[in-house]
């Protein structure tokens, strides 16, 4: 494998991981305050279609991304209202909403299938850096969205671990009763972060249709929401590990293609299944480590509806 091919492969892996990275970072915020939005796949789909339609209508991918974020937010709020306010089961509601999103987007989007995109997110080579040998090709010939996505986990890490608000967020996720006693609005903040997570998942979805495949098709996300959901667990709720996880998954999936092109003789199915086996393995490892330490890495109140008292 020559250097140029390796650099291009890394660039491809980073490029296609962007949507997952953005969505997973959003999901991390949601889970940090104690909610898991299992409907992530559905939120991404809604964002993907809305973003594409907005892009087609306005001719601007920026507006497309914004529209994707807004739609993702709105759809996530449906989940938020049902689970956070009405305290219903997150898994049941989440799975139901995914099916709603799948059917609805296929119906509404049917006239947008196989339509040529009028706008798409252009690559933005960073001056000087992009002409560096190897690293320039591998890292600095991406879209702006990808650069921002790379920075996002750092921003989230700063907010979570270096600000008072981050401390409050973690308190809400770890011990909502204590946080409630301290005067924080549990339901309010949970809803707020479900909305923020929805924005990011919606933008991630819109990135798929506007930046990766440049088209809409039914179920275009094809499981990327689930992968983003898994990455949060994989990362052990640590923002910087989200970055590692997203690129690890991206690299594995590109590696499957590379292996075939290079004739490594590995069955193509092996690489298709590897990311999922990887997640299970890492989670088992984590569980085993935690058992010996007697502490858990997930927010203690994750998935539990809040009842005052």
């Amino acid at each position: 494998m020559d250097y140029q091919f390796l650099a291009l492969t890394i660039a491809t892996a980073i490029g296609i991981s962007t949507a997952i990275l953005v969505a997973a970072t959003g999901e991390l915020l949601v889970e940090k305050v104690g909610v898991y939005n299992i409907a992530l796949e559905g939120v991404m789909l809604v964002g993907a279609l809305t973003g594409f339609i907005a892009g087609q209508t306005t001719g601007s991918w920026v507006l497309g991304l914004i529209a994707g974020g807004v739609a993702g937010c709105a759809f996530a709020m449906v989940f938020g209202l049902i689970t956070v306010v009405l305290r219903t089961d997150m898994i049941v509601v989440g799975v139901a909403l995914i099916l709603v999103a799948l059917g609805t987007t296929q119906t509404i989007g049917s006239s947008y299938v196989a339509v040529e995109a009028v706008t798409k997110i252009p690559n933005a080579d960073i001056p000087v850096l992009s002409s560096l040998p190897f690293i320039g090709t591998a890292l600095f010939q991406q879209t702006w969205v990808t650069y921002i996505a790379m920075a996002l986990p750092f921003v989230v890490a700063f907010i979570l671990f270096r600000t008072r608000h981050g401390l409050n967020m973690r308190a809400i996720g770890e011990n909502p009763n204590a946080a409630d006693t301290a005067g924080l609005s549990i339901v309010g903040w949970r809803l707020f972060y479900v909305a923020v997570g929805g924005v990011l998942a919606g933008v991630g979805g819109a990135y798929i249709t506007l930046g990766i495949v440049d088209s809409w098709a039914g179920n275009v996300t094809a499981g990327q929401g689930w992968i983003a959901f898994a990455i949060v667990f994989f990362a052990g709720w640590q923002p910087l590990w989200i970055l590692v996880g997203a690129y690890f998954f991206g690299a594995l999936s590109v590696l499957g293609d590379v292996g075939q092109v290079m004739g490594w003789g590995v069955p193509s199915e092996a690489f298709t299944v590897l990311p999922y086996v990887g997640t299970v393995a890492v989670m088992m490892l984590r569980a085993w480590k935690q058992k010996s330490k007697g502490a858990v890495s997930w927010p203690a109140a994750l998935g539990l509806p809040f009842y005052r008292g």
Partner: protein
Amino acid sequence: MEEQHRIAAHALDSRTLDMTGTHMRNRKIVPAVLLVGLVSLVAACSSSTPAATDSAAPAATEAPAATEAAAPAVSEAPVVPLNITWLYTGPENDGGYNVINEVAMNAMGTVPGVKVNGIFEVPYSDEASQIVRQAIANGAQVIVDTTGIGTYLTDVCAENLDKVYCYSGADAGPQPANSASWWLPDWDLSYAAGVAAGLMTKSNIIGAVVPYEIPIAVQGINGYALGCQSVNPACEVKVVYMNSYFDPTAATKASKTLVNAGADVLRNLTDDASFCKVAEEEGVYAVGEYNDFASACPNSIITSTVWDFSDYMIEEAKEIQAGMFQSTGDSGFPEITPLKIGLGGPRLGTFGAFVPADVKAQVEGIFAEMVAGKNFFVGPIYDQKGKEKVKAGVELEDKFLFHDWDWYVKGVTASEG
């Protein structure tokens, strides 16, 4: 007369099918849909038992005007109503494979009396059989499968000899008395695509994004490679299997990796247009399969090998209406219907405006020879390791080309088949 009532009842039921067809995409809703299906199955059975004998169906439709003086006006009309349901893998209007099948379906719908509808996202599993059963219960009199579900269809057809006719595309398995299959010489189309690629490539590396490691893929890749090598002996083919027919993200990723590895002509055996979109973006060429991709990717598509079943399907609909249905029998491949390539059938698509005239002429010339019946699959043909597998002068037969070819030719890089 009873038969006419049965058909009328089914025509009513088919409206329910239209509705459930869209719900079918959501697998979780299937249990509910099946319940509806079961209810209508019971209804359909009870309404059609009097006429349900093997010979009744063709006989009733054969001579509508002749002796039946007492019959009501509806049975004297020369138009025979026929409800036809098409099964698709992947979503409606996927920009490729389903599009050309939808064209053929709608062509069938232009035959007087014929009503068509499609069910999408049909999975390759037991569930497909349930979908077929439900379609029959809802009044489908003909099922056309474009997904290759094989025995999941034919088994159900065999249970419903008196109710339905079935068509399965490129199914070499035995067909029950009410079922037929057809094939098209995709190896020829692939060979022509390979010639086009071989004349345009500069890197001498061409790529293909392929769904699964299945016979039709192996012959498609081999045809592509041999066509390319016939005009460009140094030509190499790199293949990425996607393990899905329809996944635009995966197809985009695979296409990019092929370009990264030096391929400057891309080809799809997958369903959608991602391969040529990547080609447009990366400034390389592409050769389309199934659909004419020239309008989707005007700057990259050299040409496309277009599958067109319209003529065949129109003919079959008319034959069923005339009571002339013919099964392709249980001996498998030798009897299934070959589609003639060329005008009105599978053919070459639009050439890109950038393609030099002599390249276009050469590809069209080779295609014309194929239409005239020339076999381009003649030894010596070597396998990947360079071993001679077909001796000089030996012609490969259709049956071998269709589903026995399980090794790649020299110059192909692909994961183990």
